[in-house]
């Protein structure tokens, strides 16, 4: 952060020369003038991992078109520079830094240059001190700053992400409050979600028809939140399947997801006291290639004509390939994904689609456990917060624009931006 006001100082003679150059057509063409550039400072680059240095020096009337700066760095030996460290004099200002107002003073009338040291010095070592200087060139007029030293060091907190952290803390506090509230009181009203209510209908239909149920978790890995949400729904589906003694088939794209789902389904059968009905080949690996997976699952759906298909998790282009084949077999289809680009395909090909956060609410909705259900309240608080923020932020932005109060507009924009 630029807390100290730096005094711009290309010596008065330099400005005089500048003015003279601009005013007179040809002042002593071969008389080179070398001056000193003051106010130059080097310090550790804030909010980085410790590989960069921040150089600052005052900007001023000498930063005219045609003039340029060159930054030089040294680890003790020869001076080094790079193409990005030579730039026009009216660029690389403090105001150009993409950092929020609470972490950076964009109003400072200064140049600010971030120098990435590993790019300049292949033998860069954390903690070593480096020397820097800057040269000003405008035709025959040149100026050079005194040397400044700085040692980069890693920073323990990225202050630019403070807004994000505050929001996270807020959500976490609400999260624990709702969980403790659920423990004490329980009883939470949850609106009906048609797609999830239809699960019973789909499984009942499969039982009556004596046909299997297909459940696909998509092509996401276990680290993906939609896949985790999908395993929670699979657990509830498997419990119902176990109680109805219907056949469940879960083809997998990812072997890790398969391993997790095996445990989930096994546990569901155990909870329903139907271990005897559990089959180890309920979950099976198909392929780790998107279209091979789609082709194989399409083939199985086409041949086995399931009574119900669940497509819940992370889906891309294979969403339509799977859902459309399922639709042609007449199966009840329930889908849900976090990929908004695939939702239209599911809307048109499936009977029920879980939209947006319904995917994440489904596990809680089906589990009926007060602790898990209470977290739905956090989602509601989150949505309320977003609504208030959107409305309040829009009003403030409009007010700021109307009254031409630029700092307010900038502040609002930066508060709601991810850094």
């Amino acid at each position, binding site marked *: 952060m630029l807390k100290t006001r730096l005094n711009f100082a290309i010596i008065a003679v330099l400005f005089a020369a500048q003015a003279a150059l601009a005013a007179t057509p040809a002042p002593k063409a071969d008389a080179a003038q070398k001056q000193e550039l003051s106010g130059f400072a080097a310090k550790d680059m804030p909010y980085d991992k410790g590989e960069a240095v921040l150089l600052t020096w005052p900007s001023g009337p000498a930063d005219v078109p045609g003039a340029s700066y060159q930054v030089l760095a040294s680890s003790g030996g020869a001076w080094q520079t790079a193409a990005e460290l030579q730039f026009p004099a009216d660029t690389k200002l403090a105001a150009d830094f993409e950092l929020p107002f609470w972490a950076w003073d964009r109003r400072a009338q200064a140049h600010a240059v971030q120098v990435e040291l590993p790019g300049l010095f292949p033998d860069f070592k954390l903690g070593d001190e480096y020397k820097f200087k800057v040269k000003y060139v405008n035709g025959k007029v040149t100026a050079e700053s005194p040397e400044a030293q700085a040692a980069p060091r890693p920073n323990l907190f990225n202050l630019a992400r403070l807004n994000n952290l505050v929001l996270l803390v807020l959500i976490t506090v609400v999260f624990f409050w709702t969980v403790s509230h659920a423990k004490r009181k329980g009883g939470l009203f949850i609106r009906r979600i048609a797609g999830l209510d239809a699960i019973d209908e789909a499984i009942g239909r499969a039982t009556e028809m004596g046909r299997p149920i297909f459940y696909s978790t998509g092509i996401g890995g276990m680290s993906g939140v939609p896949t985790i949400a999908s395993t929670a729904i699979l657990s509830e589906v498997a419990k119902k399947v176990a109680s109805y003694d219907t056949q469940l088939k879960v083809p997998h794209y990812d*072997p890790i997801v398969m391993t997790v789902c095996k445990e989930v389904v096994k546990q569901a059968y155990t909870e329903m006291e139907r271990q005897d009905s559990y089959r180890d080949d309920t979950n099976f*690996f*198909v392929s780790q290639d998107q279209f091979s997976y789609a082709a194989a699952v399409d083939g199985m759906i086409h041949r086995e004509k399931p009574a119900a298909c669940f497509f819940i998790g992370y889906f891309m282009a294979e969403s339509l390939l799977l859902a459309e084949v399922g639709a042609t077999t007449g199966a009840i289809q329930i889908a849900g994904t976090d990929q908004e680009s695939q939702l239209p395909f599911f809307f048109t090909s499936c009977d029920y689609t879980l939209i*947006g956060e319904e995917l994440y609410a489904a596990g809680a909705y089906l589990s009926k456990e007060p602790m898990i259900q209470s977290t739905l309240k956090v989602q509601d608080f989150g949505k309320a917060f977003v609504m208030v923020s959107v409305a309040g932020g829009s009003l403030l932005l409009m007010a700021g624009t109307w009254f031409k109060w630029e700092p307010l507009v900038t502040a609002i924009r930066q508060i709601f931006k991810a850094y």
Partner: protein
Amino acid sequence: MTLIKKHIPLAICFIVGLLTLSTYYIPTKASENYIEVMNKWENIMAGFAFLLGLFSLFFSHYNKMKRKVDGWGYSLFVFVGFFAMVIPSVLSHGRQMVGPDLTGLGWGYRFLFNALSGTMFSVLAFYIVSTAYRAFRIKSAQAGVLFVAALIVIVGKVPLGQMIWETVLGWTHVGVTDIVQWLMDVPVVAGKRGILMGLAIGGIVTALKIVFGIERQYMGKD
């Protein structure tokens, strides 16, 4: 047993969850190294898990063939396809090209695998038509709005449609491309953002549930 099956996994999940979260706010080299190590571990585990997947695949199809279930012949193709790719790749030491020539693996990849993947992808075009037909059946007022919006977008994106619009509705001095742009920029983006915001909040809450051990169905519960 509870310690191994419940407490230790929950503790690992909690610690790793918090550490991973903190790397977003702590910009040190240690954070970067931690993420790198975790990614490496994920890859190593995925490698072992892939073996499990392969066994599962072979086991399931071998059983189908053994029991001669309906369509067991397809299971045979799993083994044929597997060896048709693995044997050439072993013989060509995993290389697809030797100089300008394709190896057996390269040939199989280019002329079998790519062709089959391309075929599956191109099937999408036909499915989109049948899906669009189903979507455009006007059963309600909302479906009517959807149909009109979609029709305008289709007309506006095709040169022939633009010509027809100019001929029929040119007197209105409203360009179809402007309407399409407005539809894509305003109602479409508004809907998308609504869904995205819900998803983002749902994702955060799900992550918190897992980190703090409230949601544990992914590890087979208690």
